[in-house]
């Protein structure tokens, strides 16, 4: 998803020289990368040179402007590097880097790094990728003569084509094209509004299909990367050989929050669990606390109701991410990646907190190279420290860290339950989840996941107006009010979806 990353100035401290920096989750004895490699202000300096570039609307461009996986440079980055103070010894000082970068950028403006026929400067100003030949400025408007011709063709590429969208809705949400007779009936409709109504009706019908909501259905599979199931350690139905937790709970909650008139923020806020009472038609119900308490040992959800935070405090989430660790950085990073779209391993979503990381568990994360990420990650992780993984049987325990003193040292018990997320202080994981669920990042991530699924790619520069309207609408009480299905009704009416 190409989107503006809200951040503090820390992002600026990253891209130019993340070279040997330990990216995330560094442990003891990490090698200390030479700090001289860092070129702190690269993203900001780029935007000083091109304040009107679309990538600079937040004041900082993305690392991907010049890098593939930092420190590796992309084709544009290599051109810039070749023109950056040639002859001066490397690594450049920050001062020299700042001084010579504008010249280097200027020197490569008329080159075409990705040989897609558009010069670097044209792409920079258009907001497309200078190092990706598939990302090009597009002229979407049709010439008048093409408009007339397209209107009579099988696919009307000059505007929203209801018939095209109608078929797509069936395929995307029902898993099957409309029958020929169904399609022909649709084509007989002349009134444009009626066509749009029929698209909406088809969507409503398909949103209840087993293809969409069922086990291994579309919504289910959207959760795979967030849940990361592993049958070997599954409990409950169809258990694996070492049953630790039942991820069916996670899939059911995910499906619930993404369907019907349910609030998608319950992905992070739900204090209940959900069961599947019928597979065809799909029926989901909240599980009563009594029923939950009566479950067999291997499928219990030991975190008390008032401490739950949707998908990120389930037994499964703790089993596969927290496991045995005192300060569950992997757990926090996975939550941040899955529900806010920020992958700290890719240096996304960094909101550095002053005086962090403290390194309560003596892992060496306060080394300069590590602190780049851990100044964000560790305060993000502290609210998870009261939630047990495998050791501790997935329970909530205010005194949990005392169990780790023997292994991680006495200081580990000083780690607070409070932390920081997106620059906001939070007193515990419930507050963490509240801030996250109400953030722009969450709405963008939810919308972006559907966008990629249904449009087939991340929103590009031409898609921004429609994409922004959708995620903002998801947040708005008067528009979709966090109801995914309402948002989807508008998504299928976008040009991105319905213009062939």
């Amino acid at each position, binding site marked *: 998803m190409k989107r503006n990353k809200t951040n503090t100035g820390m992002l600026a401290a990253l891209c130019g020289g993340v070279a040997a920096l330990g990216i995330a*989750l560094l442990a003891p004895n990490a090698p200390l990368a030479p700090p001289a490699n860092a070129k702190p202000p690269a993203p900001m300096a780029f935007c000083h040179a091109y304040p009107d570039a679309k990538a600079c609307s937040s004041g900082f461009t993305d690392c991907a402007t010049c890098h593939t996986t930092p420190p590796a440079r992309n084709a544009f980055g290599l051109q810039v590097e070749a023109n950056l103070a040639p002859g001066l010894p490397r690594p450049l000082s920050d001062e020299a880097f700042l001084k010579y970068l504008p010249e280097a950028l200027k020197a490569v403006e008329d080159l075409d790094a990705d040989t897609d026929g558009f010069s670097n400067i044209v792409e920079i100003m258009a907001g497309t990728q200078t190092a990706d030949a598939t990302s090009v400025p597009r002229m979407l408007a049709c010439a008048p003569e093409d408009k007339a011709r397209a209107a009579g063709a099988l696919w009307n590429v000059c505007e929203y084509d209801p018939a095209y969208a109608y078929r797509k809705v069936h395929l995307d949400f029902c898993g099957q094209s409309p029958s020929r007779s169904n399609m022909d009936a649709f084509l007989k409709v002349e009134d444009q509004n009626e066509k749009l109504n029929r698209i909406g009706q088809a969507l409503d019908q398909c949103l209840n299909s087993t293809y969409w909501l069922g086990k291994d259905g579309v919504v289910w599979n959207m959760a795979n990367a967030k849940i990361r199931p592993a049958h070997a350690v599954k409990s409950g139905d169809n258990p694996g050989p070492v049953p630790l937790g039942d991820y069916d709970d996670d899939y059911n909650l995910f499906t619930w929050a993404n369907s019907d008139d349910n609030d998608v923020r319950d992905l992070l806020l739900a204090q209940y669990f959900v069961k599947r009472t019928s597979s065809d038609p799909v029926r989901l119900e909240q599980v009563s606390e009594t029923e939950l308490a009566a479950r067999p040992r291997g499928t219990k959800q030991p975190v008390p109701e008032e401490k739950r935070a949707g998908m990120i405090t389930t037994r499964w989430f703790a089993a596969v991410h927290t*496991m*045995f660790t005192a300060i569950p950085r992997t757990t926090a990073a996975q939550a941040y990646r899955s529900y806010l779209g920020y992958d700290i391993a890719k240096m996304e979503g960094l909101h550095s907190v002053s005086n962090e990381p403290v390194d309560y568990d003596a892992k060496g994360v306060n080394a300069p190279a590590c602190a780049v990420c851990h100044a964000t990650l560790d305060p993000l992780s502290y609210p998870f420290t009261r939630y047990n993984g495998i050791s501790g049987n997935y329970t909530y325990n205010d005194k949990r860290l005392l169990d780790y003193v023997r292994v991680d040292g006495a200081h580990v018990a000083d780690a607070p339950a409070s932390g920081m997320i997106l620059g906001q202080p939070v007193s515990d994981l419930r507050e963490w989840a509240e801030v996250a669920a109400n953030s722009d990042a969450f709405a963008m991530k939810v919308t972006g996941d559907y966008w990629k699924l249904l449009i087939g790619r991340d929103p590009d520069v031409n898609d921004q107006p429609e994409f922004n309207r959708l995620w903002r609408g998801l947040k708005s009480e008067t528009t979709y009010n966090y109801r995914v299905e309402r948002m989807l009704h508008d998504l299928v009416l976008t040009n991105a979806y319905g213009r062939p």
Partner: protein
Amino acid sequence: MTSLWSRRSFLRNASLGAAGAAVAAQASQGAYADEAAIERARNPRFLIVLSSFGGANQVDAFLSRRESEIPNAATLNAYPDSLVQNIGEFRAIDLKSPTIGAIPASFTANQSNFVRKHSNDMMVITHTGTSVNHFVAQQRSINGNAAWLGRTLQEATALTYGAGYPIPNVHLVNGTGFTERGTDETMPAYVYGERAPTPNLWPLSLDGYKGVVGAPSRGLFEKARAFRNEQLDPSSAFYRTFSGSQRVKHWTSIRGDALRGVEAEDLITKLMLFPDSEAMPLTAHGLKGSEIGQKVREAFPNYEFDPLEAQAALAFMLLRYGVSVTVTLGPDGSAVFKKGVKLGEGGLGEGDIVNPPISFDFSHQANREVQALMWNRQLMIADRLITLLKSEEFRDGQSFWDRSMIYFATEFGRTRRRPNNAMTFGSGHELNNGSLIVSPFANGGHVLGGVDPDTMLTYGFDPETGRPEPGRHMTEPEVYSGIAHALNIDTSGSALPDMRAMRRSA
């Protein structure tokens, strides 16, 4: 310009000779299949990535230490003296245990046999990574932390030697960072990894016709394909509307000569590991098993229930038949039990657990037992692969093994601390570790680097001479470079360091 098909014939007949290794040219590779590429393809070096999911720890194997060698042995992961063997420069641990942590499952593990047999080709290098996140560290173990334009070692190998091979880069294990696509998107399509997740049925995807009972003749089928490709699709309104789609372009590019190149080699037969049986009724469907199937099945007799053995069997066949120049295999997060074992019916017997869940990472529960069990498993797979590769001639008296490298890629090591003198204890993730590389191209017989007795952390070596350098830590790009250069991959312009010490010859 040499025609594709005559070039293909040239490659098959002139290059790979009696070994019978097949190389099929692909139209999409045209720009790359120049004379230099052909020459490289004639003399390939094969990279086998044996991924070691979860942290294969060197100080539990070839860099293990005796308690008598370590001042703080009671609280560090030093082994009782009697368990540590010295074999050349390497150490080895042979362990018999009645349990795996709390699990009452006895097993016997052996490292010494492998070391004795293969020490001449073994090289252990020390290094320190930059992430203890499984996925991130897995990626960095094969891309050197974006050491060379974000290319993975497998992609670099396929780029160097893969032109003309039907499927140069095959991933037999999936869903791990070891098989994550690199970030250099500028290479030809054949360079990137092809997923082969189910060794029994995957070969069926190598021929669009064979085995479809009742279909019209092959000749007519090919006419239908040509009719579709040359007449029906190009003139269709769909194509004329959407021909600018990258997905459509990619599809049309790979369903032409690339597809025929794969099919012409009859890989559906050559790579069919499974014999005719009730579960795999090949004969009834006009198919048959591979000529070398019996030999491979004997080497990997548990291929039916052990995914790693099935992967290894197919990996060998892919190399042996000239299909690929790099293969990636390894255990994933799944537990594997001996065939016929039923849990809850009288407990587990000796060797019933073939692979613990989450593989090496089960060391969180029982470090020594899991490391021993998993190293035993990996070494056994490697030994059998090497034996098979040695048994097949590549050309001019050289075996396939003479051109191969096995890289035991892993994410990180394990923490070195242990409770006072404990034999059974759990371990965490630790950046500091090392890697095992086995190859005639490696600086065999040597440990590069060493172990600090005060911490049991490894230290590095001089890249030129290999001399140990306490206080130095080898980096991910250095490891990447050493492997790439040992494979004779040209990294000009990359600024990768020369790691002369990791190569057998200059």
